C-alpha cells in the first residue's frame, strides 16, 4: 500500500470517457508528459508531473472507462493499476477521480467503485459550467460529506479549480470510508465475503468492502481464476451465492449494479437541485444531431467528411512524401560521394537509409489520418460515425468503428491498423486488423498501372474498369473474410454495440496535436525498427552475391519507396542497365525467383515476375522498379519498361518463347497483388498492435494462400476457357 518511491507521490487519474479527464490532466501537468504503453496490451499510458509546495507528484492517466469490472482491456488495466497488480508497479498513493458534473449518476457509478477500494481519493467535479447551463445546482460540500472525500468543482477547459485539486491531492490521506446501504440479503452476504477476505489476508480491512463487491461481481461473471483468491474465500463466495439464490437473487452481479445505482440516486438527489425539469428542453448537441444523424443530410455530410479525409491523406501527404524521398536520395547520393564504392556504402545508402526512408515515408499519411481521427474523436463526431455505419459493418460481423480504419486502409494499411485502437472489443478489433491489408492501398496502384499498361492496349474505360474491379475485389474479400473470422477464429459472445454518444464540443487544438504526435511517435519507435531490419535483409538478398563487375548502385532494389510516388526515378542510374539486371538475376533473390518458378508458373508468372513478387515483400511498389531492373528497361522510361514487359518471353520450360505478360497473366498478377500481404510495414504494425507474432504470421499466411489460390483459379480457368493467349 505504502509509497515505494521516496520522492514523487504517485496519483492515478480515473474517470469516464468524455468526462474531460484529459483536459484536466493537461491542465494539471502542463507540458511535463510522457506517453507509453502498458505491458502486454495496447492501452496507452500517459504520465505527467507537477510540483506543489515542495512535493513532486506523478500523475498516471488511466484510460477512460465506465466500470472497473474488467470486461475490456482498458477496464482491466485500470483495475490492475488501482489495485497495484501491474508488474513492477506499486499501488498508487492516491487517486483523482474525474466526474462529469452534467452526468453525475453514471459517472458516480465508476467513482464509487473506486472509492470502495479504500485508496486515498479526491473527486474533481468537472464541467461545472455545463451542469450550470443545464440548470443544475450541485452542492459540492454536501457531496463531499456524503462520500467522505474532498470534492473540488473544476472547469478543465478554463483551468478553474486546478490549483485546489493540486493541493487537495497533496493533502489527501486515506479517506474516512464507509460502506453503503445494500438490500438486506445482499448486505450480509457482502459483509461475510469481506470478512473472509480480511481473514485470508487477501486485502487490508480498508479495501475489503470494495474487494468483496468486485470479487462477487467477477465470480458471477466467471472470472474468478485470475484473482488468486484462496479456496476458503471461494467457498465462502459460493455458499453466499447459493444462499442468495435461494432467497431469489439469481444474478448477484446485476443485483449489485442495481443496488449501487439506487444508492447513487439517493445521495445525488440530496446534493443536486434542478432549476428546470430534467431533459425538458433540447440541448445544443440534440439540435446538431438532428442534422448530423439525419437520414439524408447526415449520410451526405458523413460521406463528405470521409471523402475529405480520404482525399487529404492522398493529396496532402503526397508532396511531403516527395520531399522525404528527395531527402533520402540526397542522403544516398551524399554517402556514395563521401564513401568509396563498395558494399559498405551500398549498405548504408540503399540498405539502411533506404529502410529508414521506408519508415519515415509513412509519417505524412499517419499524421494526417490521426489528425482527422483526433479531431473526430475530440469533437464527438467519431461516435456518430460509428452510429451511422454500424448497420453496414455489422453485416460483416464488424463494429461501426471498423469503418474508418478500413476506409483509411485504401490509402495505407499502416495507419488504418493503428486506427483500430478506437475499437474497444478485442475480437472486433482483431478482425478489422486482419482484413485491413486486403483493402487496395496506394502502394498497389503503381503495380496495377504498370501491369495494365503492359497488357491492355484498349480504351481508357477498359483500363479504369480493370482497376476498379481490383479495388472492388479487395473490398468484397475483406468483408467476407471478416465475416468468416468472426464466425470461426474470433467467435465469442455476441459483441455489444453499447456506446455513449457524447455531447459535441469544440475540438481543443493542443489535445489533438498531442494525440496525433503521440501515435505517430509510437509508430516510429516501435514498428520502425522492424521495418528497417526487414528492408536491410531484403536489400542484402538482392545485393549478394556480387557478380564480377560490381555496379556501384542498385537503388532499384531499395526497399524504401513511397506508396504514392511513381518509381521511375528509383530505377537504377547505372549507365549499364544490363549489368544491373545481371546483378539482380544472379543475386540470392534472383536465384529464389528461379527456385520458385515451378510453384508460380501455374499462376502465369515466370521467374522474373517471381523476383518482382519476392522483392515486393519489402513494399509492393518495389515491383515496378524491380521489373525495370530485371527486364533491363532504360532508366527513367516508363514506355521502355512497358515495351520490354510486353515483348518479354519465357526463357525456358514448356512455354519457352511465349509471351510472359498476356491479359490473363496480367489479371492473375494483379489479383495476386490485391490479396497478398506483401508489406513488411503492415506486418510490423500488426505485430505492434497485437503484441504478438502470431497475428502477423497468420495474416501473412492466410493472405498469401488466398492470393495464390485466387491467381491459380484465374489463370487456370482462363487457360481452360481459351483466353490464355
Amino acid at each position, binding site marked *: 500500500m505504502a509509497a515505494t518511491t521516496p520522492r514523487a507521490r504517485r496519483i492515478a487519474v480515473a474517470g469516464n470517457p468524455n468526462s474531460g479527464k484529459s483536459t484536466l490532466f493537461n491542465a494539471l501537468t502542463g507540458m511535463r508528459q510522457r506517453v507509453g504503453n502498458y505491458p502486454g496490451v495496447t492501452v496507452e499510458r500517459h504520465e505527467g508531473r507537477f510540483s506543489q509546495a515542495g512535493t513532486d507528484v506523478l500523475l498516471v492517466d488511466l484510460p477512460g472507462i*465506465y*466500470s472497473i*469490472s474488467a*470486461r475490456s482491456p482498458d477496464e482491466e488495466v485500470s483495475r490492475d493499476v488501482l489495485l497495484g497488480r501491474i508488474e513492477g508497479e506499486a499501488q498508487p498513493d492516491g487517486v483523482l477521480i474525474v466526474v462529469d458534473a*452534467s*452526468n453525475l*449518476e*453514471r459517472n458516480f*457509478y465508476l467513482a464509487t467503485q473506486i472509492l470502495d477500494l479504500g485508496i486515498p481519493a479526491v473527486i474533481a467535479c468537472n464541467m461545472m459550467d455545463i451542469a450550470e447551463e443545464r440548470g443544475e445546482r450541485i452542492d459540492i460540500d454536501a457531496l463531499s460529506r456524503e462520500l467522505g472525500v474532498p470534492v473540488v468543482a473544476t472547469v478543465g477547459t478554463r483551468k478553474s479549480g486546478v490549483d485546489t485539486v493540486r493541493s487537495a491531492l497533496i493533502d489527501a490521506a486515506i479517506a474516512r470510508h464507509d460502506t453503503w446501504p445494500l438490500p438486506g440479503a445482499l448486505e450480509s452476504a457482502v459483509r461475510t465475503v469481506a470478512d473472509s477476505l480480511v481473514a485470508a489476508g487477501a486485502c487490508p480491512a480498508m479495501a475489503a468492502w470494495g474487494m468483496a463487491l468486485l470479487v462477487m*461481481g467477477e465470480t*458471477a*461473471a466467471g472470472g474468478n481464476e485470475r484473482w488468486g483468491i484462496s479456496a476458503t474465500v471461494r467457498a465462502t463466495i459460493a455458499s453466499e451465492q447459493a444462499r442468495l439464490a435461494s432467497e431469489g437473487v439469481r*444474478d448477484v*452481479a*446485476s443485483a449489485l*449494479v*442495481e443496488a449501487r*445505482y*439506487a444508492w447513487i440516486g439517493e445521495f445525488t438527489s440530496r446534493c443536486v437541485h434542478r432549476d428546470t*425539469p*430534467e*431533459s*425538458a428542453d433540447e440541448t445544443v*448537441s*440534440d439540435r446538431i*444531431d438532428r442534422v448530423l*444523424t*439525419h*437520414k*439524408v443530410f*447526415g*449520410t451526405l455530410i458523413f460521406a463528405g467528411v470521409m471523402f475529405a479525409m480520404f482525399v487529404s491523406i492522398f493529396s496532402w501527404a503526397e508532396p511531403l512524401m516527395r520531399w522525404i524521398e528527395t531527402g533520402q536520395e540526397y542522403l544516398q547520393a551524399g554517402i556514395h560521394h563521401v564513401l568509396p564504392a563498395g558494399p559498405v556504402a551500398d549498405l548504408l545508402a540503399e540498405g539502411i537509409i533506404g529502410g529508414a526512408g521506408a519508415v519515415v515515408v509513412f509519417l505524412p499519411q499517419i499524421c494526417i489520418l490521426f489528425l482527422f481521427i483526433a479531431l473526430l474523436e475530440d469533437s464527438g463526431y467519431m*461516435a456518430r460515425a460509428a*452510429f*451511422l455505419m*454500424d*448497420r*453496414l459493418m*455489422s453485416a460483416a460481423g464488424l463494429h*461501426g468503428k471498423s469503418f474508418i480504419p478500413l476506409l483509411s486502409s485504401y490509402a495505407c494499411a499502416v495507419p488504418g491498423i493503428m486506427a483500430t485502437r478506437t475499437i474497444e472489443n478485442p475480437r472486433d478489433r482483431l478482425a478489422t486488423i486482419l482484413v485491413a491489408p486486403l483493402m487496395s492501398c496506394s502502394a498497389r496502384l503503381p503495380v496495377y498501372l504498370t501491369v495494365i499498361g503492359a497488357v491492355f492496349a484498349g480504351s481508357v474505360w477498359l483500363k479504369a474498369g480493370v482497376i476498379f474491379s481490383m479495388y472492388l475485389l479487395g473490398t468484397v474479400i475483406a468483408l467476407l473474410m471478416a465475416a468468416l473470422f468472426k464466425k470461426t477464429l474470433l467467435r465469442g*459472445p*455476441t459483441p*455489444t*454495440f*453499447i*456506446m*455513449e*454518444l*457524447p*455531447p459535441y464540443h469544440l475540438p481543443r487544438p493542443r489535445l489533438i496535436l498531442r494525440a496525433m504526435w503521440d501515435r505517430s511517435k509510437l509508430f516510429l519507435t516501435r514498428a520502425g525498427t522492424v521495418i528497417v531490419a526487414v528492408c536491410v535483409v531484403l536489400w542484402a538478398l538482392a545485393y549478394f552475391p556480387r557478380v564480377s563487375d560490381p555496379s556501384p548502385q542498385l537503388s532499384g532494389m531499395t526497399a524504401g519507396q513511397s506508396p504514392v510516388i511513381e518509381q521511375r526515378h528509383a530505377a537504377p542510374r547505372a549507365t549499364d542497365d544490363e549489368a544491373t539486371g545481371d546483378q539482380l538475376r544472379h543475386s540470392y533473390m534472383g536465384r529464389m525467383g528461379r527456385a520458385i518458378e515451378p510453384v508460380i508458373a501455374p499462376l502465369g508468372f515466370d521467374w522474373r515476375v517471381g523476383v518482382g513478387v519476392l522483392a515486393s515483400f519489402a513494399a509492393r511498389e518495389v515491383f515496378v522498379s524491380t521489373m525495370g531492373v530485371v527486364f533491363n528497361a532504360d532508366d527513367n522510361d516508363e514506355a521502355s519498361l512497358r515495351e520490354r514487359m510486353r515483348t518479354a518471353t519465357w526463357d525456358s520450360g514448356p512455354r519457352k518463347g511465349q509471351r510472359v505478360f498476356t491479359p490473363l497473366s496480367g489479371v492473375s498478377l494483379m489479383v495476386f497483388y490485391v490479396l497478398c500481404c506483401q508489406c513488411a510495414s503492415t506486418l510490423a504494425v500488426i505485430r505492434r498492435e497485437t503484441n504478438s507474432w502470431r497475428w502477423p504470421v497468420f495474416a501473412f499466411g492466410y493472405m498469401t494462400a488466398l492470393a495464390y489460390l485466387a491467381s491459380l483459379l484465374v489463370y487456370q480457368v482462363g487457360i481452360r476457357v481459351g483466353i490464355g493467349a
Partner: protein
Amino acid sequence: MPSPAGDSPIHGSTPRFLSELKAGESARVIEIRGDDDLRRRLLEMGLTSGSIVRVVRFAPLGDPIELAVRGYRLSVRRDEASAVAVGGNE
C-alpha cells in the same frame, strides 16, 4: 417527464421491449433479459429497473438506436434493445 400517448399497457402480462418503441417514445425499464454480460453492461450504463428511457432516434439504416437515459445519450443495437423489457411510463 414527457409522457407518451398512453398507448402502452402497464399490465405485466404483455411486456414490450425497448426495440419496439417509436422515436420520441419513453418508457420505464422493467428488467433486462438476455445473456449475463449484456445485462450487466446495460445495467452499468444506467439502464436499471425503474429508470426512464427515451428513444431519441434510429440511425439512417434503422439500426442502432439512440437512447436518452439518466441525462445522457446511449446507442445500442436493436438486438440489444430487444433484451430490455419496458413498461408504460405512468
